[in-house]
């Protein structure tokens, strides 16, 4: 039972790691560009959870600052990512990742 209780920072960290894994799995397995983008967001948020946890462990709010920065950057990335999606959609009328493999070899 010691593994489950009491709640230590390790629990948060493991949770964050698992969430990161889900994000990775999503990016790797999905061909839908939107879902892939969302999985990327999941990954970033998993890292954020780690930062907040470590902040709490170290008693230092630097981790929070990082999280705020990451949120802003994630927004910017999402913005560019969506723009790319639109550009792609204009070319092929599809958002299937596997369709874009003209560059290879």
């Amino acid at each position, binding site marked *: 039972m010691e593994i489950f209780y009491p709640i230590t920072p390790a629990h948060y960290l493991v949770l964050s790691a698992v969430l990161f894994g889900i994000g*990775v799995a999503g990016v790797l397995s999905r061909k839908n560009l939107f879902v892939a983008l969302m999985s990327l967001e999941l990954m970033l948020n998993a*890292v954020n959870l780690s930062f907040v946890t470590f902040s709490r462990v*170290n008693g230092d709010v630097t981790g929070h600052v990082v999280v705020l920065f990451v949120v802003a*950057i994630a927004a*910017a990335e999402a913005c*560019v990512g969506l723009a790319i999606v639109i*550009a*792609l959609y204009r070319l092929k009328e599809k958002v299937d990742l596997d369709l874009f493999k003209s560059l290879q070899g």
Partner: protein
Amino acid sequence: MDTFPIELTALLPLWIVVGGALALLLLEALLGEEGRKASPVLAGTILVLALGCVFHLLSLKGMPGSLFQGAVVVDLYSLTLEGICLLSALLTCVFSASYLRRERAVTGEYYALILLAVSGMFTLALASDFLTFFVGLELMSLAAYVLAGYLRVQERSTEAALKYFMLGVFASGFLLYGIALLYGASGVLHFPDLRHFLEQGRYSSPLVEAGAALLLVGLGFKVALVPFHGWAPDVYDGAPAPVAALLSTGVKTAAFGAFTRLFAEAFGLPGNWVPAFAVLAVLTMTLGNLGALGQESVKRMLAYSSVAQAGYLMVGLSAASLAPADDLERAVAFYLLAYTLMTAGAFGWIAWAAGKGETGTGFEDYRGLGLKCPWMAFMMALFMFSLAGMTPTAGFFGKYYLFKLALDHGLLGLVLVAVLNSFVSAYYYLRVVVFLYMKPVEGKETAGLPAPLDLRVAFLLCGLGVLAAGFLKFPF
């Protein structure tokens, strides 16, 4: 100068570039068509100005060191990196000017994005803490993603942007995770603090090691180390050639510069890095070279070659935890300079020679060009010799310093692999020269476009730089 705050003067190149980017955007918005025409000139001027500023700062005796409460550090190394990035951007601007005119895609935003990317590179070069480092990386990368997809009506360009973006963000996730772990272990983000923390003996904490490993994944992606390189050939190949020049030189210089600083200064202690670095180096060199070996397109060959070249840098970096930081940074900075001159030159040459829509990037397309445009072809030959590491070009000196660094610290096996790779690479580099000079023209007329004056000047400077860089006095 004394009356200005040091933060203003020491970072003047950065401010100039940022200001320039804003000015370009305003110009585009306010003036429209005329602004567009003026934008390359303005961008060039700004870059030259910044470059002059960098030179001036380099010539100053004392270095301000750490600024903004340790967020950035201005020293000879970072200034040198800034200079190299500016050089890369400047060359890109020159290459772009005629290229974009030919593709009918001139906009002010393009140049603004270049300047924004440069400011990202600067941030990266100056960064002395992980947060600045990450922001700089993202700033540079975002601009780079967009530039790669700039010709969005072409499928290749947009696809390049997509791949670059997807993998970039994915790798950023890993990088960030690594930072998180390091932060968790040490509670600090500043490089010197981390070093201090590590020196206290908690060095081999698994958290630190795991963090460093994940950091390495992220950085490895940015500088296209195998096996994180998947994007690189496709992106360099798909992106417009001048952009490829910037991506493969400026972006890589900044990333490698920061990479080196991180591992030379923050992690610069004997540790488990050597085998990891060595494995990465061997994989990168070998697979990069083998990839380039099988190509029929010069542009794509160059893309692979830039992967392989990163491998040589890794040979030097493998000595990161053994060699003094100064030596390492010097060797890396010199190699980056040489690499920038020759790779940017080569991509720029492709931008010139490939013709509208980049239809002619194959080896076959350059048959007999050496006889038609002897001097332009000679420049390409020079870049190829330099990339192959033949004397007395900068490429040779760069490799020499890196290999020497590794060898002086006992990495004989690694250097032997590097040398072997260098040998293999000579084949495909020389193949370009073979097609330029030694294959008769068959059938269709090849390209043989007139080269505008600005291009000629740029190539001449590149060529002279390639020839002379090894003999010049290096700033530090």
